[in-house]
């Protein structure tokens, strides 16, 4: 079989596990191997993903042009107000700046942007070479903030200092500084929560906020979907944090609990089951029978509304096999459960930056024989999709052409999406999308030799 002849890189074997074979710990949270064609991005990418949805901030990239080019308005985060975040600003460093330092250019860039856009908030992202040439962006930001009387936060996101997960942390550090209160801690509001780890892709945070509103809980601010300077400044008035995208927001939730005594709950709004459970969990936290009753009513209504349609898709999809390769462990776990709701088995699952605990949970969830892998490359994805006979792949933009070339269906589960996959309605959208790709008529015309080859 041609598939088996391909060569693997031995060091990668520690990061690939087949459930049920010998027990071993999957190697993860480590650096990518050179030449492996990892699907991972960099520290800057991680930071930018997390902060970019803050709508009224200027996002200024301190570095050569590329980093800003590749991240300009490529995400589907929606705004109810400012559109400033949809711009990509760069100091566009040139050779001379690299030689003589870019601090002055950065400070002039800030002056120019303040004059033109009057922002209250600026994030300055450092890129690889800024880390090397030694620009003191902390000092520049501090001086500029004082000069313009606004808030300017440096984000330490030089690409080489780690992987995407390090960027999440750098972003959280910046957010922590931003939400730090003055001398007095504000009064906590009851039944008022912050929602961490939703970037309001195609309005997903709005959907969840509406659910909470209906049951009588206020969403104070979402980190960071449709967030703004003013909203973030009130973050610590909430009495509870709920955390969805654990990969990027776990650290922030922990720090807020430590510093401001706001506890947190892990939630997931992907799939009917998880959405219902998460709403119940939050309602139970506030221990109010009326609230819990309203929650049950909401769940009942929504499931009545969407359940039958999803069941219809389930009928057509049962027995299909899925491969999952996504950014973080949280999403992988949610997807395994969500596919189960559709009668689909996950035969391969991997992430770019999953954590040890998340992989343990994945191993618990999947059936024997499922391939689990960390920081995979295209050669491995291809090998295992074919080996396991996957009918569809879930992934991002880079993985899509690979799936299609292999004649495999594909689900875009990345920040680029234009329709919501969260909440009850999102579960239906997901089922619809899976059906539209797995059961598309096109596959009948591409598999097999076809007419031209007939004698």
């Amino acid at each position: 079989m041609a598939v088996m002849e391909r060569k693997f890189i031995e060091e990668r074997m520690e990061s690939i596990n087949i459930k049920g074979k010998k027990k071993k710990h999957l190697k993860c949270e480590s650096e990518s191997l050179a030449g492996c064609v990892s699907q991972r991005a960099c520290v800057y990418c991680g930071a930018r993903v997390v902060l970019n949805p803050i709508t009224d901030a200027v996002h200024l990239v301190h570095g050569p042009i590329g980093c800003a080019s590749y991240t300009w308005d490529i995400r589907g985060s929606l705004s109810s107000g400012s559109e400033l975040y949809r711009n990509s600003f760069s100091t566009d460093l040139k050779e001379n700046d690299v030689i003589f330092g870019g601090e002055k250019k950065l400070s002039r860039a800030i002056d120019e942007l303040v004059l033109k856009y009057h922002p209250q908030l600026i994030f300055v992202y450092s890129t690889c070479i800024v880390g090397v040439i030694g620009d003191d962006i902390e000092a520049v930001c501090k001086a500029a903030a004082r000069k313009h009387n606004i808030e300017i936060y440096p984000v330490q996101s030089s690409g080489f200092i780690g992987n995407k997960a390090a960027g999440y942390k750098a972003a959280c550090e910046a957010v922590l500084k931003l939400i730090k209160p003055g001398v007095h801690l504000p009064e906590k509001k009851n039944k008022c929560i912050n929602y961490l780890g939703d970037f309001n892709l195609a309005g997903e945070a709005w959907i969840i906020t509406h659910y909470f509103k209906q049951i009588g809980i206020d969403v104070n601010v979402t980190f960071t979907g449709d967030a703004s300077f003013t909203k973030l400044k009130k973050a610590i008035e909430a009495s509870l944090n709920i955390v969805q995208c654990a990969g990027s927001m776990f650290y922030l939730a922990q720090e807020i609990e430590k510093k401001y005594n706001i506890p947190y709950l892990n939630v997931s709004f992907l799939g009917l089951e998880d959405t219902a459970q998460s709403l119940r969990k939050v309602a139970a936290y506030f221990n109010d029978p009326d609230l819990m009753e309203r929650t049950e009513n909401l769940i009942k209504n929504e499931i009545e509304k969407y359940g039958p349609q999803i069941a219809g898709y389930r009928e057509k999809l049962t027995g299909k096999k899925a491969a999952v390769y996504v950014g973080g462990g949280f999403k992988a776990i949610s997807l395994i459960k969500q596919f189960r709701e559709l009668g689909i088995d996950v035969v391969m699952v991997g992430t770019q930056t999953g954590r040890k605990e998340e992989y343990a949970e994945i191993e618990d969830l999947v059936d024997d024989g499922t391939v689990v892998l960390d920081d995979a490359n295209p050669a491995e994805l291809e090998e295992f999709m074919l080996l396991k006979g996957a009918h569809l792949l879930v992934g991002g933009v880079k993985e899509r052409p690979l799936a299609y070339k292999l004649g495999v269906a594909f689900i875009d589960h990345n920040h680029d999406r234009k329709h919501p996959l969260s909440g009850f309605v999102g579960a239906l959208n997901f089922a619809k999308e899976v059906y539209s790709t797995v059961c598309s008529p096109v596959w009948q015309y591409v598999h097999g030799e076809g007419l031209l080859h007939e004698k």
Partner: protein
Amino acid sequence: MKNKVVNLRNVSQNPCSMCMPLGGIIPFKGLEQSMVILHGSQGCSTYMRRFMAEHFNEPIDVGSSALNEKGTVYGGEENLKKGLDNILKVYNPKLIGILTTCLAETIGEDIDRISLEYLQEREMEDFPLVTVPTPAYSDSHTEGYFLAVKRIITRLAQKSEKNEKVNIIIPNISPADIREIKRILEGMEIAYTLLPDFSETMDAPFTNNFGKLPNGGTKLGDIRNMPGAKATIELGITVEDHLSPGKYLENSFGVPLYRLPLPIGLENTDKFILTLKTISGKEVPEMFRKERGRLQDCMIDSHKYNAQGIAVVFGEPELVYAVTKTCLENGIKPKVLATGSKNFKSGQLFGEESSNLKVLTETDFVHIRQVCKEMDVNLAIGNSEGKYLTEKEGIPLVRIGFPIHDRVGGQRILSVGYQGTIMFLDRITNTLLEYKLSNYRSSMYQKYFQGIDVK
């Protein structure tokens, strides 16, 4: 030059170019069985792969030396060598391109020395490793592209026997455009070496045997023999001499060089075909005369609609030149020409017309938008990065060039030759018509009817 807008800004706002290594990747994708590795941090290769995957809708595998903190401080040699090992193992390519990033250049990595050493250590001195220094802070992707082509030739070309072939050097155009150029060459019965030929590799037909490295691409043996060719045609009149592959072949091997514009538009295509005729002594087949006649027919049919177009043309210099020329031939008024590259000698190129054109080099989209507003532009011609011209200013965009990421089929857009020009012109005319037809009833009503019934 008084119409050239001098760029004094300190901040780029929505870049009109990408970085140098991205441009450098593309030619390597047009060589048979070739791979590329970027010497830098992991994110660069991932971002560029993502960007290219969206445009070409093909899997884009690019390795990275995945420089980390240690590699950045103590040198990334080991990473690069290991990366090469892994790429050889998994992909088994016939050639590998090594491109630097700003990180590698800033820390002073000597890729020539490293690659020589590598080949000696592995006892594979004959293996073609092609090094290309591409720091993002020095030039844009356009220069990266031509430098890579030149370095490929420099590495492979050898003094060879005179042969009947013509070298064709192409800029960054769509795979469909490359196929059309090849059709013209074949129609003229001209033997050729076209470099880089990514017409098959970056727009591969679906097959049931997907290979890690796509089929097609310029054959390495053909590149070796380029010095024996009858002539070189370089479709690159805006390319600076020091980056020009054709100049290199002329200076080092005495291959006569013809530098022509991209064959978009009647005159530019005439030039291409007549040059082929001159070089080969062959007659122009009837087929092309008919195609030319159809283009003339198309120009006449559409000229009054086209006369209403006031255009901004943006993108890579070579395309901007050819498209602008085509606009001028057809009575479309090009008012603003914009490129993110700094090398655009527009003044000399358009003769008398130059004084009516506003030329923006090293520009960004915030600037382009502002100038378009001032000049009452009603038609934008360029890549997807101009989407805000439509979204924010209501100027319709005819998509051409790289990248096309918000529409399908970037790889299939055909615009060269008489046939391609017809299709391109139709796209322009129909865009103007659509705009007119959707507006004229209400605008006439507002202009002439309102107020009639007032006494």
